[in-house]
């Protein structure tokens, strides 16, 4: 069962890669197998509930380091591609905790997580944000607040690891950042300045248009790319706290503050590449690469669209800036940076071992070992070795390290079904008919009532 709900890519799927592109045709094609089964008269009952293939991707031998007195533990890993898998093995070895790694194909792992988490390994790979908080609230993962006492990670990461009850359930490992990407050479050539506020941003768009450049690259195929725009305008207009409570289901979508987000968005729409809904993010990236468009709000994985051998000049030419300020009360204090990391089982077989492993994985040593193998991500831990970073990684690291708030992305900060089935559709409808926004928001609010937000 690999039928894929459209969703934003995970850092473990894309990094800030300089090493060629990774494509997901294979994953998408895999959906057809499930399709044949599911579509036949729709009589399947509980799609995706088949047990996770714990035997799927082999058994790495336990790390051989002496484990002190914490005993050995188990780790459920979705780091299934070749490099991430080797990197994870190196990171675990660096922690010095004897660990049996169960690697599962990352698509199956995520699709079957609901079932897997009922009888998980001691430590399990997962994502920060609502996706973590929902499981924490249901009591299927363990409180690791005491582990956080020993971690050296910034406040933003701690906030992103905290459940609704104020306890920590998550240890960040790495991330990528979302920002407005542009080509440095284009900005130099035309003398564009990096805008820091909304008026400056609009003015820059107008200037680009006058220069015959489409100001904003826009894609929305799959329904997730424009969620990033919604998040950024929302956090700049209403602040991070509103983002969290809106995503948590406790604010009304017919509220004037939500309406204001779309009103601000409408200021930008005239500068969009036309027909965003059908465009894949890669096509929009190509427009930016060809300097047909000026700016592109997307994750740092943008560079993975360009071929490292033939388009290295484009990769080196790409830089990004944080989304400009709208309300001075919130400035640019929030940044969108999906984080991958780890949780602990609710009742691990070896709790001391699990916590020792989590402490180790949250440290600079583990992520250094990982990045030595797979240098396409940005470390969450303070004190990680940043010498090998390229300019984009360095910037993402600085911006996120100093950010007051780190959001995870719309489909990671709320119920994933609500994100893709309700909000994503409303955004797509808004893009094709911006005037219909009142009705769309009323529909979102009505449909929101059928979701139980944890």
């Amino acid at each position, binding site marked *: *069962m690999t*039928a894929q*709900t*459209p*969703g934003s890519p995970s850092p473990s799927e894309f990094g800030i890669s300089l090493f060629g592109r990774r494509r997901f*045709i294979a994953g998408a*094609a895999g*959906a*057809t197998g*499930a*399709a*044949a089964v*599911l*579509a*036949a*008269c*729709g*009589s*399947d*009952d*509980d*799609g*995706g*509930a088949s047990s996770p293939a714990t035997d799927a991707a082999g058994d790495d031998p336990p790390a051989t380091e002496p484990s002190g007195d914490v005993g050995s533990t188990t780790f459920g890993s979705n780091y299934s591609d070749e490099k991430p898998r080797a990197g994870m093995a190196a990171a675990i070895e660096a922690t010095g905790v004897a660990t049996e790694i169960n690697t599962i194909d990352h698509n199956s792992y995520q*699709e079957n*997580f*609901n*079932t897997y*988490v*009922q009888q998980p390994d001691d430590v399990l790979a997962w994502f920060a944000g609502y*996706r973590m908080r*929902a*499981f924490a609230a*249901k009591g299927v993962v363990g409180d690791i607040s005491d582990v956080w006492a020993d971690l050296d990670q910034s406040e933003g990461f701690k906030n992103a690891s905290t459940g609704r009850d104020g306890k920590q359930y998550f240890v960040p490992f790495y991330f990528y950042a979302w920002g407005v990407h542009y080509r440095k050479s284009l900005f130099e050539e035309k003398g564009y300045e990096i805008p820091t506020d909304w008026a400056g941003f609009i003015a820059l768009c107008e200037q680009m248009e006058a220069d015959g450049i489409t100001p904003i690259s826009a894609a929305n*195929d*799959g329904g997730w790319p424009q969620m990033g725009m919604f998040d950024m305008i929302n956090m700049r207009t209403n602040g991070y706290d509103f983002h969290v409570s809106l995503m948590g289901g406790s604010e009304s979508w017919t509220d004037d503050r939500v309406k204001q987000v779309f009103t601000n968005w409408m200021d930008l729409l005239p500068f969009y590449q*036309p*027909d*965003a*809904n*059908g*465009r894949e993010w890669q*096509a929009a990236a*190509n*427009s930016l690469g060809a300097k047909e468009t000026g700016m592109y709000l997307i994750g740092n994985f943008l560079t993975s669209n360009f071929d490292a051998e033939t388009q290295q000049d484009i990769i080196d030419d790409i830089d990004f800036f944080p989304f400009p300020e709208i309300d001075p009360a919130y400035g640019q204090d929030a940044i969108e940076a999906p984080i991958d990391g780890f949780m602990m089982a609710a009742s691990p077989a070896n709790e001391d071992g699990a916590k020792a492993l989590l402490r180790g994985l949250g440290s600079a040593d583990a992520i250094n070992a990982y990045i030595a193998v797979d240098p396409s991500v940005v470390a969450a831990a303070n004190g990680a070795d940043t010498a090998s970073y390229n300019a984009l990684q360095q910037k993402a690291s600085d911006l996120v390290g100093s950010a007051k708030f780190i959001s995870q992305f719309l489909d990671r900060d709320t*119920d*994933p*079904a609500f994100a*893709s*089935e309700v909000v994503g*559709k409303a955004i*797509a*409808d808004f893009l*094709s*008919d911006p005037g219909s926004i009142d009705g769309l928001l009323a*529909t979102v609010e*009505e*449909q929101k*009532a*059928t979701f139980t937000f944890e």
Partner: protein
Amino acid sequence: MSASLRAESELMAAPRKGRRRRSTALTKSDKIWLSLMVGIPATIHILLVWIPALATVVLSFMEWDNLLPIGEAQPVGFRNYWVIFTIFDTNLFPAMFNNFMLVAFLFVCSAVGMLFAYLLDKNIRGSAIYQSIYYFPVVLSLAVVGFIWKSTMFSRDSGLLNTLWPGGRIDFVGDSTKVFQFDLPFLDFPLGLSRNFAALLLAMAWRHIGYVMVLYLAGLKAVDPGLREASAIDGANEVQTFRNVVFPSLKPINVVVAVITVIEALRAYDIVAALNEQRGTEVMGTIVTNALVGEGGGRVGIGSAYGVVLLLLCLAFIIWYVTNHYREGEKA
């Protein structure tokens, strides 16, 4: 003249073939073999099709997040149905409408496929080449057809259709504005055919026409040429011959094609999923899957309710087909 007579006598003889005397004298081993050959497939069918289907029906009256044990599932009566028919009506009715559009459209494609088969059956020069060309898409799964059309034909920035089109660029994939629409009294939004779904119909036609064509080609080969000759001699023109002689003798193929067409239309999923389920292209298959599958996709009750609606649509067709089929059988 003799050919015509022979054909007539064969026509007269045809019904008699159906009435074969039934032998009831089965030996013991015959009975064992029969019960095995019927019993094993029936058991597998019940286990893998009907028990899950019944479970779906049961689950559609429950609320379950697919995370807590199944024992925690709460019965909620008809609430899931109320939710999908009133709150997610913006999903359900457009999806059902698209499925009905598919049924209608694929029947048109089937007619075109039959026409192609009829023309190619005339042994025109190069007919094998045409056959291969039309048949080629059938070897591809609809998901692959979707990928091909999305990237090479429909793409707004680099697709073939946009390159050839003389006017402005068209977003075949994402444009959900309606080609036509109408209001229904119980809905507060209009139903209609989206442009992107119309484009998707074209891609499906590309495959379906070839598929149907091959079925009819096989059927046409089995039509006795003497019949046509006879009707030609009796002074029937091409259209009359087709309508009164060839088409009726294709009846078994017509039934097969009708079944295939309806099933293809109702089970449509893969091509829509391959195009990322754009707004305006939703079909029952995709909304069922979306509610059930995927991480955190724990809306088992609602997804099952969608599934039951689709099951009922399929059952309605199957019941209609089976009763019709048997009634025809009795007449003969």
